[in-house]
């Protein structure tokens, strides 16, 4: 199989990831802070190492990093903890359903006002429009993705977060598409991300990292701490970690983080982008194809394309017949397609990873050339 859906989940994972997960099942089997035995200590050390590694990448204190079931849960918990009734929120048209849907639900539950900024020019977003939205709507939060999961455009997160700070607006950054590719130290107040995409960890694990905010628990349950009290603890990270943690996944993520330095990630990103650019150039030269690729300075290795005569779903089915796995449709980014002109049927998305070979994309381009 030629796997071109890394923006959904990366595959294959580095061998150390399933090996670490297997080690948990074979040798450990218990959760951190659920007992005092040696194996609990092993679990606690590995979880602490993973937490510290994420904190380092997020410029956060380990005490302000919580594990969740994924970026979706992270965003739901954070938005519910932060947004008060009647609050205004500035967000962007690039957002994934994991931002769009919780915001839509909160908008009706808590009467939020949403200001959605459209895509703009080579920077992805118009900073003047952001400034004006902050001044005009007095939002309590900026909620935005670090990169588009449809086009690979990376938004100017550092400038956005600085502007937010200047206007006393809390910044919540969804780093699902960038963690594992880009520097996340962009000054956001809260980062929400997942383990299973470019970080190359397992699914079922995400994280919240923040800069010392008051984020009250949104779910209550066992934490292994404060066991004598009926009240859920309000100290972090326990406040956000109710219930048995996904320790095998944390073992997998810890191994993935230890095996790949940030410098390696940057090198791999540059090489991967070069591979994808060559593919994009071939597509653009072919009759009937329209490529929706990012023109921003920073990008992730994701592009979308459409065809004049074939529906994206038809192209996906034809490629599937040749054992090529791409993604078709709207990619859980409901707002963006209005701006791309692809609202009716979406796009075909090609997203690649560190191990995608140029020859694989050549094969796909040859197939597409024959349509």
């Amino acid at each position: 199989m030629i796997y071109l859906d890394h923006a959904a989940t990366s595959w294959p994972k580095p061998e150390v990831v399933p090996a670490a997960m297997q080690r948990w099942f074979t040798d450990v089997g218990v959760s951190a802070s659920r007992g005092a035995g040696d194996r609990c200590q092993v679990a606690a050390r590995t979880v602490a190492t993973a937490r510290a590694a994420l904190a380092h990448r997020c410029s956060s204190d380990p005490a302000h990093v919580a594990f969740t079931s994924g970026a979706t849960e992270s965003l739901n918990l954070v938005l519910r903890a932060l947004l008060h009734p009647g609050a205004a929120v500035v967000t962007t048209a690039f957002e994934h359903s994991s931002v769009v849907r919780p915001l839509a639900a909160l908008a009706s539950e808590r009467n939020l006002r949403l200001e959605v900024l459209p895509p703009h020019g080579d920077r992805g977003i118009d900073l003047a429009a952001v400034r004006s939205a902050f001044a005009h709507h007095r939002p309590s939060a900026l909620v935005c993705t670090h990169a588009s999961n449809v086009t690979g455009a990376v938004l100017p997160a550092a400038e956005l977060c600085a502007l937010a700070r200047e206007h006393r607006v809390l910044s919540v950054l969804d780093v699902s598409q960038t963690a594992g590719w880009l520097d996340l130290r962009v000054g956001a107040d809260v980062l929400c991300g997942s383990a299973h995409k470019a970080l190359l960890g397992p699914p079922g694990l995400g994280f919240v990292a923040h800069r010392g905010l008051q984020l009250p628990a949104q779910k209550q349950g066992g934490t292994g701490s404060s066991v004598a009290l009926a009240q859920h603890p309000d100290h972090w990270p326990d406040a956000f970690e109710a219930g048995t943690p996904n320790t095998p996944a944390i073992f997998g993520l810890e191994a993935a983080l230890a095996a790949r330095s940030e410098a390696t990630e940057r090198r791999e990103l540059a090489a991967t982008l070069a591979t994808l650019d060559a593919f994009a150039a071939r597509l653009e030269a072919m009759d009937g194809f329209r490529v929706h690729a990012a023109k921003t300075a920073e990008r992730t290795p994701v592009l979308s394309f459409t065809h004049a005569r074939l529906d994206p779903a038809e192209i996906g089915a034809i490629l599937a017949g040749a054992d090529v796995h791409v993604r078709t449709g709207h990619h859980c980014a409901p707002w963006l397609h209005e701006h791309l002109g692809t609202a009716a049927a979406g796009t075909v998305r090609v997203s690649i990873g560190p191990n995608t070979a140029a020859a694989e994309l050549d094969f796909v381009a040859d197939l597409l050339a024959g349509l």
Partner: protein
Amino acid sequence: MDRYSRQHRIAGIGQHGQERLRSATVLVVGCGALGTHSADALARAGVGNLWLCDRDVVEWSNLQRQVLFTEADARAGIPKATAAATRLREANSDVRIVAHVAECSATFLAALPGRPDLVLDGTDNFPTRYLLNDWCHANRVPWIYAGATGTEGAAMVVRPGGPCLRCLWPDAPATADVGTCETVGILAPAIAAVAAFQVAEALKLLVGSPDVATGVFTCDVWRGHYTRLPLLDRPSPDCVACQHGQHPALVAPAPMAATLCGRDAVQIDPGTTAALDLTALAGQLAEVATDLQRTPHLLRFTADGVRFSVFPGGRALLFGVRDPLRARALYDRWIGRRP
């Protein structure tokens, strides 16, 4: 006056047979032309329990031959099983009728509250017939295969131990090879002829008559030919069901239907990797579908207001439909292929 007085005067039935009918349970799979004809006859004959199963809704083009439905049913798009049950209760309120608006799948059959005494084939596709064949074989339930297209029909009683449908044809023929009511049309008396055979055999089976017909009944009502081919006195020595106790249709993965996110479109994955002959299918559809377009990679056509894109592996996209059950019905109707 006993409503069944004319019936139990038949020597093979009698009062005793009528009692057996009253305590019998028959599952009718498919409430189309054949299913409605046969269910109507069984209800009027006093079969005590009728279970009806159909996943589709009444459409205008059904009224020409599907006897239990009215124009009001078609206008309202009432599920066929529901509309049929309503009409049958009006015809005979003594019959306990259960309507299942459902696809007849292995899961559906396994979830039935008990074993029926008999299963009647009222389906319009071979994949479901093979499922009935295998399920009935595994559960020791007799069933009566019946089908009609154009002016022709065929029917056969299948009893536990065989011979069975797989003795006749080991695997389901491709729809492109056999034609469907959509592609070759259907004349109502062809239905009535096979229904007459099916119901007569059903009554004989239910009363325990020794006169149940063997072989394959075939007819062409246009030419006036009615024959019973003395095929299959005994099970085929190669039949996987009769000789080896295997039931491929019970373990085959069901075709998967998924609504495309945010769209009025459903993708059907037939759950088999065998190639589909798109050129043959295109030939079958040439006269009945519109916007037919064949490329090396796909076949596109429009039928029942839905645009189909079919791929060589049998996968299909149906644009203009949202309900996966409806999409599966349309897939079976127009493409119709399953393991």
